[in-house]
């Protein structure tokens, strides 16, 4: 509706601000037209929109990663500035020889895989329950997704209390069932699973939302067809519906894995300090501790690069997959 008047105005060339610059661009200094020729007709003009944000992201994200890589090659520790004159892979060698690093890498991997799998499973279950045409669907959905709106710092407080040895809900429940108390946070063999459980609580709602969108994109006929074939409900989901959720599963997995890599906030808040409970150290917490508590900047950077490569290993194939499907 409005575009008619808009376009009408425009022919009159009533551009109060910026008009001059654009006219300058259009009338074509040779470098600009050369750029436009090479990249496309709007390249220069549209750059006023995308270039500043792109530079900001380029500087803070990619510039910083390259800088981080450089720092990881120095011996930077303590106070002062890094010496970029002497670059080597010493810090990576140190990481491989550091049993704390190896433990953290293993824990990161366990958390990554375990958390992603259980969260996907629970999220899928929730999505199917919600999708069975229930009453109060919105209420259920809102409550299942609610933990996702909370800060890790907040949920860490809740779960520190839930897992409390003497008075926590979980130990109260299991002792009332006749089992002994479990030291969820204190026992190094258990704590990682306890953390995984808490994170699952927080993110299952997210997986549910993604799966629900996937389920609702499946045409009704597929359900009908399965029904006509006389398949049971379980069989129908297993054979017909779930295989069609591949796309949802992939995108949910990628996001969940990235969340797991970032679980720093949760672990920091659980204990209120840089050192997570014994047995729950992950690369994200080790990196921050090495840098800000121990001032081992170069070493922390090397740990950070490792973490970055792990992320790249997950996200890279995903981006390639999306690119091939024309989603980029």
């Amino acid at each position, binding site marked *: 509706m409005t575009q008619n008047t808009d376009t009408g105005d425009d022919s009159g060339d009533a551009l109060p601000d910026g008009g001059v610059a654009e006219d300058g661009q259009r009338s074509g200094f040779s470098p600009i037209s050369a750029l436009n020729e090479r990249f496309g007709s709007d390249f220069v003009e549209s750059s006023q929109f995308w270039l500043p944000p792109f530079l900001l992201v380029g500087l803070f994200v990619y510039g910083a990663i390259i800088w981080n890589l450089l720092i990881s090659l120095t011996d930077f520790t303590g*106070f002062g500035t890094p010496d970029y004159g002497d670059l080597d892979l010493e810090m990576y060698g140190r990481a491989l020889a550091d049993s704390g690093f190896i433990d953290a890498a293993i824990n990161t991997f366990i958390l990554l895989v375990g958390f992603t799998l259980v969260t996907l499973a629970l999220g899928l279950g929730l999505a199917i329950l919600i999708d069975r045409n229930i009453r109060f669907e919105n209420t259920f959905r809102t409550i299942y997704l609610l933990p996702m709106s909370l800060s890790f710092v907040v949920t860490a407080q809740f779960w520190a209390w839930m897992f409390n040895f003497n008075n926590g809900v979980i130990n109260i429940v299991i002792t009332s069932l006749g089992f002994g108390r479990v030291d969820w946070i204190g026992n190094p063999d258990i704590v990682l699973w306890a953390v995984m459980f808490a994170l699952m609580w927080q993110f299952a709602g997210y997986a549910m939302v993604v799966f629900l969108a996937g389920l609702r994109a499946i045409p009704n006929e597929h359900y009908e067809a399965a029904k006509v074939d006389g398949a049971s409900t379980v069989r129908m989901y297993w054979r017909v519906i779930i295989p069609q959720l591949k796309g949802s599963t992939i995108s949910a997995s990628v996001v969940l894995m990235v969340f797991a890599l970032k679980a720093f906030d949760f672990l920091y808040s659980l204990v209120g300090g840089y050192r997570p409970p014994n047995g729950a150290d992950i690369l994200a917490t080790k990196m921050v501790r090495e840098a800000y508590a121990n001032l081992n900047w170069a070493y922390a950077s090397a740990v950070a690069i490792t973490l970055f490569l792990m992320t790249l290993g997950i996200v890279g194939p995903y981006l390639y997959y999306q690119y091939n499907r024309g989603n980029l």
Partner: protein
Amino acid sequence: MTDQDSRLSRRHFVGATGAATLTGLAGCSGGSDGGDGGDGSDGGDGSDGGDGGDGGNTLEVLHAWTGGDGARAAEALVAAFEEEYPDIEHEFNPIGGGGNQNLDAVVANRLQNGDPPSSFANWPGPNLQRYEGVLGEVGGVWESEGFEDVMVQEAVDLHQYNGAYRGVPLGSHRLNCLFYNTSVVEEAGVDPDSLTSVSALIDALETVQSETDAIPMTHGASGTWTTTQLFASTMLGQEGYDAYMSFIDGSPDEAAVRATFESLAEILGNYINEDASSIGLTESNQNIIEGNAAFIHQGNWAAGAYRNAEDFDYDEDWGFKTYPGSEGMYMLHFDSFLYPSDNPSPDATEQFMAFVGSEAAQVAFNQYKGSIPTRTDVDMSQFGPYLQETQEDFANADQRPPNLQHGLGVPSGTMTTLNDVISSEFSGPYNVDAATEGFVDAVSN
């Protein structure tokens, strides 16, 4: 001196390049916003005020005494300072959280950013290594105040680094302490004073276990430091002064370390509270106050909590015993204030340093903190009976070995490694072999 100058000029140089970057950035985003281009010029204006602004002469002191007796002691210290130096504009900032962890991180970052406070609380000794290059000297204060003559010799030695004084001590805690709940040990029929060896302690713990419902030894291991600290006292008590000193000096006797860990494994594996790994010092100490436990090993800051507890008196309700086997020794700890170079308020800071070492400051602070003065000429009549005894023990001690966990024994990097070993190998299940290997490797030169 040249050191300081080059730091200063680097900071200005960096500031200038940074200014160019920010102006550039603001220009970019301003452009896309249309009307907001004015931001860029603001950035330019700001760089004029680059000389530290109003912070010029205010004395800014950072410390970590945020709770309980620590906060009260810090208040008393500030009040005494205001009385002595009413003209100095000051700002005492307590940095809370995680013991000293947050304070250390804040100090480190401010030193790193070339924005040091006037002074900050920390430990002297090898701990000073981590501040290599960013600490100034206060030899002038030591000389004009005559500190070398009135401070205990260990304080004189440990406050020097690279041949210069870097700070001034405020007080001293004792580390090799065993506290007990009198009624619990009586119920068990144990006489704490008869415990003069680690094996006698283990026997006593067994007695408590079989005779009472109480926890024989309460332990708060949610942080690793309590266990590292227990290792130090146990080693001192069981293997003796020489073995302990060669351990911290970097030539450990593996057999001594192993024997210490074996005793520790026996204690921690059998006689501590089952929720030890999820509670901290505060709750662990609460077990003594509430009569749920017989013994606790801690530095004597634990006694501060007893004094604050109602109806819980020294000798009647709680008692003190030198950690078994370490009789005649005082495992040393210092709370000190250090002096950063590139100091924002050099004159005021030097006056503050002189104050910290004065009798007025040491009496005001230590009587509430539960520590003792580092000066030898302080009238102890204002202190309670427990601290008076501690002071006597200190003065009469045969040896005063430095502590392991609080900065005086090993540099902070080594301390971190030791705690990593405790975390991965010795927080249940207790792996004596791996812990021994880790500790020996960590301290060996």
